[in-house]
């Protein structure tokens, strides 16, 4: 693994304030990736053994809805996190992810990271705390989307 990724990790908003010791451990599970526009990063049902920190670009989280076709429920952009299905079994993706633009990201090996979290609970606590934050923000946004606030309710 390329350890020069550590400075990049440190800069990413998701890891803001993380201990160097933990960053080193995580760097060991990470790698730089680039996708062209229109690339399917993962399909619904695929094994979810990675998660991504987007450095630059835009990814659509999509779902195939019968009679409606492919629907985008969320876009994930620079500085944001894509994917949490690697955290819990059965480690399968629930959505499609497709890049809208050329995208530059950090990919993290989920299995590798899970093992390290099991070994080092301090690391585990920090990682799960950060993911918890993301999940609550996404939940709140989803609730707003659910309310259909722009709908004409007259």
């Amino acid at each position, binding site marked *: 693994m390329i350890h020069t990724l550590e400075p990049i990790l440190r800069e990413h908003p998701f890891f803001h304030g993380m201990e160097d010791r933990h960053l080193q451990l995580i760097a060991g599970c990470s790698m730089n990736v680039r996708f062209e526009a229109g690339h399917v990063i993962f399909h619904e049902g695929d094994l979810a053994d990675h998660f991504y920190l987007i450095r630059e670009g*835009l990814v*659509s*989280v*999509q779902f195939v809805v019968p009679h*409606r*076709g*492919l*629907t*985008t*429920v*969320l*876009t994930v*952009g*620079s*500085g944001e996190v894509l994917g949490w299905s690697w955290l819990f079994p059965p480690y399968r993706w629930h959505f499609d992810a*497709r890049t*809208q*633009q050329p995208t530059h990201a950090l990919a993290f090996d989920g299995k590798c990271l899970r093992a390290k979290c099991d070994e080092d609970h301090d690391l585990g606590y920090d990682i799960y705390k950060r993911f918890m934050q993301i999940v609550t*923000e996404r939940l*709140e*946004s989803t609730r*707003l*989307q659910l*309310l*259909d*606030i*722009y*709908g*004409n309710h*007259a």
Partner: protein
Amino acid sequence: MATMLEQIEVVTAGLVPDPMLPMPYRIQRVKQETGDTFTLEILAEDSGKGFSFAPGQFNMLYVFGVGEVPISISSDPDDAPLLKHTTRVVGTVTKAMRQLKRGDTMGIRGPFGSHWPVQEATGRDVVIVAGGIGLAPLRPALYRLMAEREKYRKIVLLYGTRTPEDILYRPELEQWRGKFDLEIQVTVDRAASSWRGNVGVVTTMIPRAPFDPTDTVAMVCGPEVMMRFTVMELLKRGVAPERTYLSAERNMKCGIGFCGHCQSGPMFVCKDGPVFAYSRIAPVLGRSEV
């Protein structure tokens, strides 16, 4: 060319001896915007009388024999006396309004209400967050800001709506985006895969929007729920409650503080608002049935 109102006081309405008397306005154009949203372009029959308004103010629009509704003015103040009103078909009057054609006449009373704090924004960053048709009452503020661009630092427009088909004033947004000194981010609640832009509620764009919260004036307009969540995110980022402004909406029968219908706590939305600093309206915002 009408001059911009800088003061809080309304100029034109005071000239009318009886503020309950409408002035006849001729429809110049009816434009279908999106779905059920349309814009009326109108001009006073007697354009000898100067009409000027401040961004954020509204008129009471009367459809002959049907009724009257309050609608924000959404045109460029510099274009006055030509006025534009963008609205949705939500009831009897707006439904009748949609049937009007070029050359028809309607009655106008106004302008009424408080305005966006464009002057207060001088020398500061400006962040404008619009949701759905909320972009309409904010458009005059954008025109004003762009007309004197050098007076302001960063200007950011965050616009969210339901689907790409509901994006209001799209050509204008694209034109503004082309000017490099205005940051525009658009998002939709959901989209088909052909949409290449952001998907997600407008509040998600606030954490990373490029403005300095310690020296920013924020102007927010959209459905009430959207405004409440937007304010939460802005405050979280450190924008001052006294510098965060919203536009409220209530039932109005007169527009001049007499009929009592628009009251929200101690505020009359027609004359103390519709534009309010968050610090002032916070006690009643989001409170059930107040």
